[in-house]
């Protein structure tokens, strides 16, 4: 197995930490993992992205230049990275903030109104975990359990109260994805 996942959006959307969570979960499952952020002054514009590679072979370059999965949290990210996705790859579009469609016809695209669903769960900040849930369901790259385990290690104890809501968001995302698969 090999997944090169690119997560991109604004700063503040939890893009980097979502990627780390995924990498951590992969590590828990004894897979080879690597995480790498974009860095440097391009960040000034307020955009942020990171690449996560999860594989059962050693990872050559951690840079995800040809993602198998793109998670686009905002419009500029979708426009910028859409062309790089491998044929028959997957694009997850945060349709709460992105009101356009992808131009690629050779990839699978799922539109997830992540912010709206998150708000409906009562916490706009878990939009990233909604979309992460979708990813888990569609790719099976790691299990929900590994993600939750990773979350426990990544979050400082005093913020463990946030675990249930995150778990709920992941579940919600998986459920959405199942519906999508069914449809």
């Amino acid at each position: 197995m090999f997944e090169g996942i690119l997560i991109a959006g604004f700063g503040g959307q939890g893009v980097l930490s979502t990627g780390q969570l995924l990498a951590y979960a992969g590590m828990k499952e004894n897979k080879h993992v690597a995480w790498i952020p974009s860095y440097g002054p391009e960040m000034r514009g307020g955009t942020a992205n990171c690449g996560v590679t999860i594989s059962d072979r050693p990872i050559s370059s951690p840079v995800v230049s040809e993602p198998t999965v793109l998670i686009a949290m905002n419009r500029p990210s979708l426009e910028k990275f859409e062309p790089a996705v491998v044929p028959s790859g997957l694009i997850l579009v945060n349709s709460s903030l992105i009101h356009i469609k992808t131009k690629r016809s050779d990839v699978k695209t799922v539109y997830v109104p992540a912010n709206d669903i998150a708000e409906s769960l009562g916490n706009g900040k878990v939009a990233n975990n909604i979309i992460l849930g979708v990813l888990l369901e569609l790719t099976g790259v790691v299990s929900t359990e590994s993600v939750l385990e990773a979350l426990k290690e990544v979050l400082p104890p005093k913020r463990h109260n946030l675990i249930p809501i995150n778990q709920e968001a992941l579940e919600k995302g998986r459920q959405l994805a199942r519906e999508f698969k069914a449809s």
Partner: protein
Amino acid sequence: MAKVLMKGNEAIGEGAVRAGCRYFFGYPITPQSELPHYLAKRMPEVGGLYLQSESETAAANMVFGAAGAGARVMTSSSGPGISLMQEGISYIAGAELPCVIVNMIRGGPGLGNIAPAQSDYFQAVKGGGHGDYRVICLAPASVQEIIDLMQDAFDLADKYRNPVMLLADGVLGQMMEPVELGEEKFVQPPEKPWAATGRKKGGPKRLINSLYIVPEECEQHNLKLAKKYAVISREEQRWEEYHLDDARLVIVAFGTSARVCKAVVDRARDEGMAVGLLRPITVWPYPTGVIKRIREKVDRFLVVEMNMGQMIEDVRLAVEGARPVHFYGRAGGMMPVARDIFNEVKKLYNGGAEQ
């Protein structure tokens, strides 16, 4: 012990602390900033010092002072900052002081950019400063190896009283990978009777110095250094071999580009081509021995670098015309892509253009 996910830059910091380094002097620069950030927090926890210098020039000379006073000490920078340290590094080498210098290479020349590159190879291994001196250069290819090599770096520095440089780039510095940290053991740096810490009455006078105004004495000093470098060249060559045994085409690459080349070797093997990888871990001393050993057994070499062709000279010096040595490089902060290298390999393997 459990693995943890760690950033390369932070691994350098943690590796240094675990190797007993207690002094860091440096000036911020991308893409190594997480290292100062980490040590600014970490050093006070272990009773050490993180001091931000006014420039890289000053940092190199603070390192000179602290090393002369007997401390395990390090600095870190990238491209332009490392260039500014060249005078200091020459003095450190001339005065035979142990220290560790981290160079997270970025695109150049000039201000260039902050993307990963290997274009400071010549500067590091041939000596960007003045005079006949050598810096031991280590080139890790993973976060785990960073941790391991930091210990070696300080040990080699003290063993040979010589500066040691860790060569990496923004990819290695920014990426997170699982690492095994191992037991945190207290490292007592070796005794340094030569350190100038204050002369005991009746004791020997210590002088930290690189001035030899009389040419005869300066030549003696150079000969002494050359002897030391010869020992290091003999004893400290390190490399990784990957599918070298039966390889007809040998890729030579270090650091980040070697990671990519490993995938290329895998793919070539999948397709039945006898391709191997030689990954120098020390780029000075250069693992010339292994190349001389295998050169007659292979058809050709392919050097892959993230620059316009620098390490290839060391490979050619070792191959001595016995076999063709080809080059594939990306420059200016571009990462080589496995597919492109693979195509190059395929072309060459099937008897592509002779050199």
